[in-house]
């Protein structure tokens, strides 16, 4: 967070955005994004990866709230988009408490699900 503060204050120095609320929003949002990214890439379990991803999403949306007034429809679509993504990811990682390696052993369960879902 400190690093981002310093980096951003260097980048944004001399622009009108330096003093505004936008600056703090940017610092907080980007830090949250980076933390979420760290969680996403350092965990083995797919479900904690999803949690990290959600935290990143929070960061971006917080940044959006702080910074500006985006058009409503855009924010709405983004949220829908992310929800679809999270649902799909959870379907794919259907064995909740399995790591990516163990999860290969449980895959036939996934096929069962798919057959039930898809059979006409």
């Amino acid at each position, binding site marked *: 967070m400190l690093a981002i503060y310093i980096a951003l204050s260097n980048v*944004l120095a001399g622009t009108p955005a330096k003093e505004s609320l936008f600056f703090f929003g940017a610092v907080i949002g980007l830090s949250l994004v980076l933390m979420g990214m760290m969680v996403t890439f350092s965990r083995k379990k797919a479900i904690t990866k999803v949690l990290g991803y959600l935290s990143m999403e929070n960061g*971006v949306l917080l940044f959006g709230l702080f910074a500006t007034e985006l058009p409503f429809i855009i924010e709405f679509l983004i949220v829908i988009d992310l929800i679809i993504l999270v649902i*799909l990811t959870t379907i794919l990682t259907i064995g909740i408490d399995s790591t990516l390696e163990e999860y290969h052993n449980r895959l036939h369960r996934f096929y069962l699900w798919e057959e039930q879902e898809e059979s006409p």
Partner: protein
Amino acid sequence: MILLAYALCAAIAIACIAISHTHRQMNAAAIGFGAACAVITGYILLFVQVPVGTLIVGNGYFFVDHLGLFEVAVATAVFLLAAIYAQGYVKNLISSHELETGSLKLFYGAWCLLELVIVLAFYSDNLALFWIFAEMTTIISAMLVAILSAKENIDAALKYIFVASVSMLIAFAGLIFLFEIARSATGTGTLNWTILIQQAPAFPAGMMIAAFVLVFVGFAAKSGIFPFHTWLPEAHAKAPSAVSAVLSGVLLNVGIYGIIRVFAIVHRTAAVATASLLVLFFGICTIGIAAISMLPEKNLKKLIAFSSIENMGICLVGLAVATPLALFWVLFHVMAHAFTKASLFFSAGILHRQYKSHLSADAPDEIRDVFRFQPLAAWGLIIGGLAIIGMPPFAVFFSKFFILVSLGSLSLWVLVLVLALLFMAAAALGYFVIRSFSRVTPEGEPVDLEPYHTPLTMKAPIVILLAAVLVLAFLFPMGGTAYLDRIVAELMFV
């Protein structure tokens, strides 16, 4: 009205898929949708005066300009041929029990939806809207990658989702920066590209760099640029070949298209020097990493996927030079690469059907007696390989040549470096082809392979694409050049 036509066709196609029971019907619906999209695009290309601003009640969310139309034309062509190819390919997937009959509806439904979303993405004026559609292409194509009943596919799809969408979130932070820039410069915040490009000279350089870096990270992951390329070989190698062709020929273009749009804005501000340096650096890194990874590669589809990464690197290098000439050839390269790479994946798909090497996507391909079993696929691979490394009569040669010439005017040493890396990639491809195609069972020994009868629908797309790549180079000056010039002018590079 035009967008409504696309959406209507998609709705009809998906409804047909939902009520049909056999594979043939679903495939016919997908082909029909591809053809309808191609017809609509051709109609716009020939008869409608672009740019069109008011597609849906003039709210500024969608528009058609030359660049978007160009990308849509390339995308619909690849989609149509891939759908035709899928008829034979998917049939064989089902008969060898790799794809369950139950997933067929999902497959073709997602296929049509993907085409619609990509078309909408290229037509969106608002950058945030473009971001949403790009993100949706990630989701849908990950679904297409994961559809085969193999565990590696789901693994690859998860990797694809995480790498691509995590980076896309960072890109959205960049878009918020852009929004804020526009707000402080013009008073009203907007992400409409047409307005941003007009106002660009007033934007402060520091903020512009921050915005560009963040956006670049996101769209670079979408198009497989160096630090985020890890998902690409996995996903491309494990997807069904018809899907690989679409991933490589169309989805990578979505990322490059985003980078081109934002770079065009940066190009009009003072931040352009830093941004070009960044793009050039990552472009060269991408070419380098792809060339080095190609050398020891023993899996055909992975090799072709790395070659896609290399070509995206070339696009970035051309973009970094940022002269109108270089941009012109970058656009040409996008098109030539899409066609050539699609034909390569089609050929590789036939070989994979023949040798069943898809079951272990990491293992080396066991290709033997290729000319005896699959002469067309073998020649398709040889000619396509020659085309993609940039041999003279093919279209890729011209774009690579002129991009490198414009790079040479920038710095000779960088040119030599890039040339060496390209040579390495070409050598890797040639080495693979010579080694695996020259493996022949001696006369008289029993061969335990059954020749796979390739249906005409799988052969025709390869021939059409290779002919297109060959002819494109000679027929393009009639009308095409003026068209690309108009794109360059619209991006305000002149």
